[in-house]
């Protein structure tokens, strides 16, 4: 049997499971907040075109609108100024093979629960590698924080000095790109960077280093708690928007169940 047919058979048999890492697109899902005088990412909105009524007697459909960075979404390198000159840096030009990649899932859920400003460090990742092995090249690194389980107020966690949510410190992002050749960085939080990452040096290091080196971002992921530390395959194909900086998308993880 070919590898693909064996894969299909495993899917049918349930020895490979499909886990949805996507939040439902809904108006009330929080969108990243920028200072109000700056441009804002549009939240998800939907207008009914017809629902078996005088506007269309036998059919139901909607028009929707949103930003490229609304809901569970993909960040392309062109999203950040550091990646603006790279080849194939937009969602329509990224090689399609890049939309399938394995994932290493680093569990920071306890640390994040204890401290919403938890930052991922090199020693933390090294300790993870000591247990699960070295991060293979071209792997997604997904930060499991269980943040996707929080209600909106705690999820965004806006205090009087801005948002507070976990994310990576600058050195670890640079290290993951340069020393581990990762494919991209994914989080459950509203962005790939920590809530307070505007104060880091450089600011927003996950964006700065990942996109500056042509790597990708995934954010607002759900259900990372259902993934094994290693061995999951991530399917994350964004919409093919011409020169798109990112896109809402359905993120699926394929996971082998132990026989």
């Amino acid at each position, binding site marked *: 049997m070919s590898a693909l047919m064996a894969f299909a058979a495993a899917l049918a048999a349930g020895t490979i499971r499909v886990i949805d890492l996507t939040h439902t697109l809904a*108006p*009330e899902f929080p969108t990243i907040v920028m200072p109000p005088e700056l441009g*804002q990412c549009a939240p998800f*909105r939907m207008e009914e075109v017809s629902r078996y009524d005088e506007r269309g007697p036998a059919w139901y459909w909607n028009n929707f609108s949103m930003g490229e960075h609304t809901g569970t979404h993909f960040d392309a390198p062109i999203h950040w100024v550091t990646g603006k000159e790279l080849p194939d840096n937009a969602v329509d030009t990224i090689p399609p093979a890049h939309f399938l990649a394995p994932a290493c899932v680093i569990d920071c859920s306890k640390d994040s629960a204890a401290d919403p400003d938890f930052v991922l460090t090199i020693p933390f990742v090294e300790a993870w590698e000591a247990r699960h092995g070295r991060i293979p090249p071209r792997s997604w690194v997904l930060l499991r924080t269980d943040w996707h389980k929080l*209600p*909106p107020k705690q999820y965004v966690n806006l205090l009087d000095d801005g948002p507070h949510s976990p994310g990576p410190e600058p050195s670890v992002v640079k290290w993951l790109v340069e020393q581990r050749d990762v494919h991209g960085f994914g989080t459950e939080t509203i962005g790939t960077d920590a809530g307070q990452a505007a104060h880091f040096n450089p600011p927003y290091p996950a964006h700065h280093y990942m996109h500056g080196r042509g790597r990708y971002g995934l954010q607002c992921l759900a259900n990372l708690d259902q993934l094994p530390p290693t061995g999951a395959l991530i399917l994350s194909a964004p919409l093919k928007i011409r020169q798109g900086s990112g896109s809402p998308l359905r993120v699926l993880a394929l996971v082998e169940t132990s026989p």
Partner: protein
Amino acid sequence: MTDPLIRPRRKDPLRKTREPLLPQGVRSRTGHGLTAAAAEGRFALQVCADCGFTLYPPRDVCPRCLSARLPFQDVPPEGVLLAETTIRTSTDVYFRERTPWRIGTVVLDCGPSFVAHLHGDVIEGTRVRMTLRLDKSGMAVAIAMPERSTAHQEDDVQLRELTCDPKFRRVLITDGRNATGQAMARAMAAAGASIIFIGIADPWKPFPGEATLRDVPNAEIVSLDLTDTQSVADVAGEIAHRIDILVNTTEHPRAGGIMHRHGLTIAHEEMDIRYFGLLRLAQHFGPTMRARGADGVNAAAAFVNLLSVHALINWPLYGAFSAAEAACLSAAQALRAELRDGGVKVLNMFAGPLDTEWFQSVPPPKLSPATLATATVDALRKGIEDCYVGDIAQDIKGRLDVQPKALERELGA
């Protein structure tokens, strides 16, 4: 003295809701001079430009000198109630269910005599102050008021038919995140509103004044986002039948003109928040309010728009904002026609720049949100339709009436 209004009992949910009826509402084109005055709470009659004769009812020719130059102008409203009578039955279906109804003959000091509605505290043979009001059909009618304010004057049953007093009414304030919404909530509480629903969009986002807003008497916070059709539909589904006065406090003032703004993102937001927001409110709350225009003491009474006075004429410094406000004004006029069948008024409050962070760089005079809120309550109590609040709004309105082209050039200087 007027008997103070008693808080209405809860309505039996099984009782049929009384259908809104309208008094006869036909006026001549000239007669709409009275409508224009009533809409702004002024008392204006025709005064002959040639012989100075003050006349009523409106005519196209001066009965004294035959001049056709009969402009409306504000005149002294004082007079004497000569005679009164009480109507106990009527063939008119509107008045038939509102009898007994007092009317009387009033002679004004400035000349004309009126057959007018009478406030309950007006006594035959005494001096009165005549006012023009909009009745349920949106037409000007005259009601004689006591010369000096009396206790609970605003609770008079005949007067209340012409006003939108918030007392014992249930109010929806669509946005409590901003200073105007918060001031409006406090003003409505002070005016005796029985419930004040306050919409908050993105409740996960903190905002200044959040704690004190929750302390407003009879306040009830609802999650409401005017940019989200489903949110408006959901809230309307829950409470539209309990809203007697809707005040749209959702605002989005942003500086910038038309040409130099980089792209349409902000313009989209302006139109979505203001114009489409108004349409969503109209579609989801309007029909229910229209159906409840005669639903007892706390019948649906008013849909209030807070508009920039630059809806009337563009202020290029806030050019795109002005254009969005103009769209809202136009929609409000359509809504006014649509709600009129239910006897529900559309009140447009026109204001100049507010003393808020979005007009930070604009020099005074600026209107405080509290002043706008107090003026809104006052306008509802008077039952007017168009209110120009503060120096800037009144100045713009005055200049617009006299020389709009000059105003356009001056605003664009």
